[in-house]
Each structure stands twice: as C-alpha cells, then as structure tokens.
C-alpha cells in the first residue's frame, strides 16, 4: 500500500515538473523568437516580396495576428497548443503536428539504431579498458575516446560520406530514400541502406561518453574490498567480471546512456544535415533558416519532452530498480 502511494507521489511529482518545464521553455523560447529581427511575412513570401503590396502584407500580418502585442500572441499560441493545435508550418504549408510526427518517426529510427549501437560498443570498450587498466589496450581505448570527444560530429560524417559513398561507392550519398521513386515504392532495404551512414556517424560519436564512464566504474569496482576478497579466493578473468563486475556497472551505464538523449538529438541534427536525411533535425534547421516560427517552437517543445523522457528513464533506473535505493526513500 505504501509502495503504491509512493509511486503515485513520484508520478505526480514528475508530471508537475514536466508541466512547469514545458511552460518555462515555451515562455523562454517565445520571448527569444519574438525578438528576432527576421520578418515572418517576408520569409513566408520569399523572393516575391517586391510584387506584394504593403496592404497585402498588412493583411497577412493581420491574418496571423502579428499586429497584436507579443503577450497576446503568446496567449493565443498557448491556447491553441493546449487544444492540440500547434499552428501551421510556413515552409511545409501543413499543420506543425503532422510535420513533426512524420519527421520524428524518421529521426527516431536513426537515433534508436545509433543509441543501441553506441551503447553496446561503448559498454564493451569500457569494460575491456577497465579490466585491462593501465595496459596498452586501456591506453588505446582511452586515447580513442578522448580523440572522439574532440571530433566534430559533422566532419566525421563528411569523412564517412567521402569514404563509403564517393570513393568506394558502397552506400548512397544522402536522403532518406532513393531520388525519383515514389514514396510508397521504396523498399525497406533501400531505407535501411540510407540509414546506415548517418546512424554509424551518430553512434561513433556517442561511444566515447559511455565507454569512459563504464571504464571508470569498473576500475572503482575492481579496487573494492569485495573484489579483492574474490581475487584472494582465486577468482579471476571473465568469471570475476561476470559475478562481481557486471551487475554493479550495468545499471549506471544504462542510466548514463539514457541521460545522453540531449547530445543524441544534437548529433542527429548535424548528421541529418550532412546526409540530407529527412528527419526532425533537418526540419529544425530549415525552420530556423526560413523563419518558420510555429515549426521552430513546436520542435523545441518536442525535443524538450524527448530529453525529459531520457532523464526520467535514467532516474527511474537509478531510483526504482536498484534494490539498495528502493529500500530507502525514493
């Protein structure tokens, strides 16, 4: 009974936190956007601006409610948002919610593949380095991770593009599906082929963090008293790792990996731009460059929720699954 109450309390608390966070983020980003010198009417009309009379411009501004004070605009936007209407995207000329849903699906495929890959590789690399602490294997892996941390993600994407698409010609140069083929005719394999390079770019970048963290945790565990005792009993190698190491480092590693959703999203923005992959990251860049305020705000909120979910998962793993913490207070 107490546990149910505690869980209910936890969920309510997190919901309130998310609500406050979303309100704060929307106020902050609305203030930023409304200060922008970029004129939405002009970016909407584009090059034809000279052929549009001032009266017509005023009409468009009136229609969008641009003549009202910013606070009124914010309240209007917020009211519609609460009803599920995120406005209409100026560059895609369709509802923002639809654009985001479609784009997010493509990004999600990319990000989840990269997330799983980088998690696995990072974990294995980190464990190898931690087990062999101080040897040349450890130094090699550490050097690799530190180099990766200084590598611009988009440059890595460019290198892979040059190597595999231009030079070797194994993989397509970009886009989410082959050009000149109808959307419904694209096979799953084709989509997969287009996904490989961006996903690999994203996962190579994501490896460093998780590997270094796992390594440090394992080094700490290996220096603990219970491992010293186990070693004294004669356990060694993989068996020692299996019995005493894995359980202690798995959970923190997964939590850290969940908490990296923000960097994952940032990496996806860059990778999608390099490979012209039609995901949310590319949409946010286009929205920013094209002055598409509704889409920009929508994606900011969407990415905030995405990061929040990652942090929530990390928090739950830490606080609820770990039996030592579960016994205490949540």
């Amino acid at each position, binding site marked *: 009974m107490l546990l149910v109450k505690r869980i209910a309390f936890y969920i309510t608390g997190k919901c309130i936190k998310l609500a406050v*966070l979303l309100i*704060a*983020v929307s106020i*902050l*980003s609305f203030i*930023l*956007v409304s*200060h*922008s*010198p*970029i004129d939405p009417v002009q970016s909407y009309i584009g090059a034809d601006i000279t052929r549009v009379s001032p009266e017509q411009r005023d009409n468009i501004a009136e229609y969008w409610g641009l003549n009202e004070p910013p606070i009124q605009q914010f309240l209007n936007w917020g009211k519609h948002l609460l009803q599920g209407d995120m406005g209409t995207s100026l560059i895609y000329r369709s509802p923002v919610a639809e654009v985001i849903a479609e784009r997010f699906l493509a990004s999600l495929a990319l990000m989840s593949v990269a997330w799983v890959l980088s998690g696995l590789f990072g974990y294995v690399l980190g464990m190898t380095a931690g087990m062999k602490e101080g040897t040349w294997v450890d130094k090699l892996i550490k050097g690799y991770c*530190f*180099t990766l*941390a*200084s*590598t*611009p*993600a*988009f*440059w890595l994407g*460019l*290198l892979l*593009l*040059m190597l595999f698409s*231009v*030079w070797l010609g194994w993989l397509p*140069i970009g886009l989410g599906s082959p050009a000149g083929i109808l959307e419904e005719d694209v096979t799953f394999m084709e989509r997969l082929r287009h996904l490989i390079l961006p996903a690999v770019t994203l996962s190579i970048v994501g490896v460093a963090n998780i590997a270094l963290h796992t390594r440090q945790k394992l080094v700490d565990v290996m220096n603990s008293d219970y491992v010293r005792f186990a070693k004294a009993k004669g356990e060694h190698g993989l068996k020692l790792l299996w019995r005493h190491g894995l359980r202690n480092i798995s959970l923190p590693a997964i939590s850290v990996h969940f908490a990296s959703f*923000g*960097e994952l*999203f*940032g990496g996806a*923005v*860059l990778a999608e*731009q*390099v490979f012209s992959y039609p995901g949310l990251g590319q949409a*946010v*860049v286009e929205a*920013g*460059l094209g002055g598409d305020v509704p889409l*920009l705000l929508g*994606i*900011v909120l969407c*990415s*905030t929720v*995405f*990061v*929040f979910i990652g*942090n929530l998962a990390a928090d739950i793993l830490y606080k609820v699954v770990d039996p030592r913490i579960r016994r205490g207070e949540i």
Partner: protein
Amino acid sequence: MMRHQMLKVSLRQRTLAAITISVLLLLGMVLSGLWIGDEKLGINPAEMNEGPSLNHLFGTDWLGRDMLARTFKGLTLSLGVGILAAFSSTMIALVLSLFASWSEAIDRIVTWLIDLFLSVPHIVLLLLISFAMGGGFKGVVIGLALTHWPSLTRVLRAEMLQVKTAEYVGVSKKLGKSRLWIARNHILPHLMPQLLIGFILLFPHAILHEASITFLGFGLPSEQPAIGIILSESMRYLSTGMWWLAVFPGLSLLLMVALFDILGQSLRKWIDPFHGQKGV
C-alpha cells in the same frame, strides 16, 4: 619509496611539459593565423582545384584560394569566438554560484535554472538564440555565452557548498562578518582554481559548437573563412573527389580542440592536489 618519489616527480614534469607544449602549439596556430594577410586569402584562378602539394600543403579550392591559409585564419576566428564565449560563460557561472551561496531559496532558483538550460538539446538552444539575434557573429557569441555555463555552475556550486560548511566560515559568521565579506574572502579564493580550469575546459565545447552552428548556416557570415563555413562549402565538392577541402580543415579543428582539452586536464592535474596525486 624511492621509486614512488621518482614517479611523482616525473608525472609533475610530464604535466608541465604537456602544458608548455600545448600552449606553444596553440600560440603558433593563432600567431600564424594573425600573420596571414588578406593577400594570402585572395582568389587565384591560375591554381584552381589543386590537390595538396608543397606549394599548397592543404591544397586549393575552386577559386584557387590556399586552404592552409584559410584553415589557420578560421582557427584564429574560432579561438576569438571561443575566448569571448568561454569568458562570459565563466563569469555567469561565477556570479550564479556566488548568488547560490546567499540563501536556500536563491540556491533553489539557480539549480532550477541549471536544469532548465540542460533540458533543451544544446544545439537546438543555440539555434533558437541565434535565430533571435538574427544570426551572424553576434548571434553565435551570445548563444555560446548563454548556454555553456550550466555544467560549470554545477561544479562551482558543489564546491561552494563544501566551503560554506567549513568551520572557518562558521567562525567568520559568528564574528559578525557579512555574507558579502565571506563570499569575497572565503568562497571566491577557493573557487579560483576550478574557475581557471573550467574556463580552459569550456573552450573545446565552445569551439566545437561554434563550428557546428556555423556549419548549419546560423553562425558566422559566409564570407568569413570559419571552419564551419569551409566544411559546409566543401560538401558541394565532395562528389567530385576533392577530399582535401574537408579532411585538413576538420583535422586542424580536431587538433586545436584536443590541445585545449589536454591543456585543461594537465592544468587540473597541476593545480588541483586531489586529482594531481593519481596519474591518469
């Protein structure tokens, strides 16, 4: 005992050597970037699309501009932006962590602000601020300055909380010293090493983010030879096999970022006695 001592001395010397070498290399990069005049960056139709050679170590681009000169100019530009951004971010972090020492309520506000800024993906936030400023140099610098303080503030705040519970602070309080006096004479000196290291370690992030945001088209104007601009322009020529347009500028950027990282880590080892004991 003897061996232990030798190891310690050599670690210290190694650290100092790492600091000296990275500072010298960085200085070399910046000075050569400053020394390169406009005539080196000019268009030269006689030497278009040339691969790397002794005359042009990094090759030339489709307008015959020397990529080596452009790259170094771009690195200097990145460094300038990095200094501005890292300095302002460090100042924001310092002010906020000193504010947080004032009272419980303010501490809670500062923590909430940190969480707020970390809850939006960094690139998206940079994009938003750059959009609000209308892009360009100003947008990048303000964006970088306003988004790099949270992690450093967290470190400084933790440090500050430790000092606040120290006995000598309690004694000062009992003696009737004001909170401002305590902040200036007890907390600030204690934060100084962390502040310096934090400042240096902000550089890699700031420079990488500057390049990324410029690459996406929000940052420095396209007539500047910034690394982000160079790399985004090189994308159009990749399919023609001009690999040198992307490889060398990116590699130089990587080198610069790595040098700053090494400098920061070594400084920490050198200054901070708690991390300095163990040779990482």
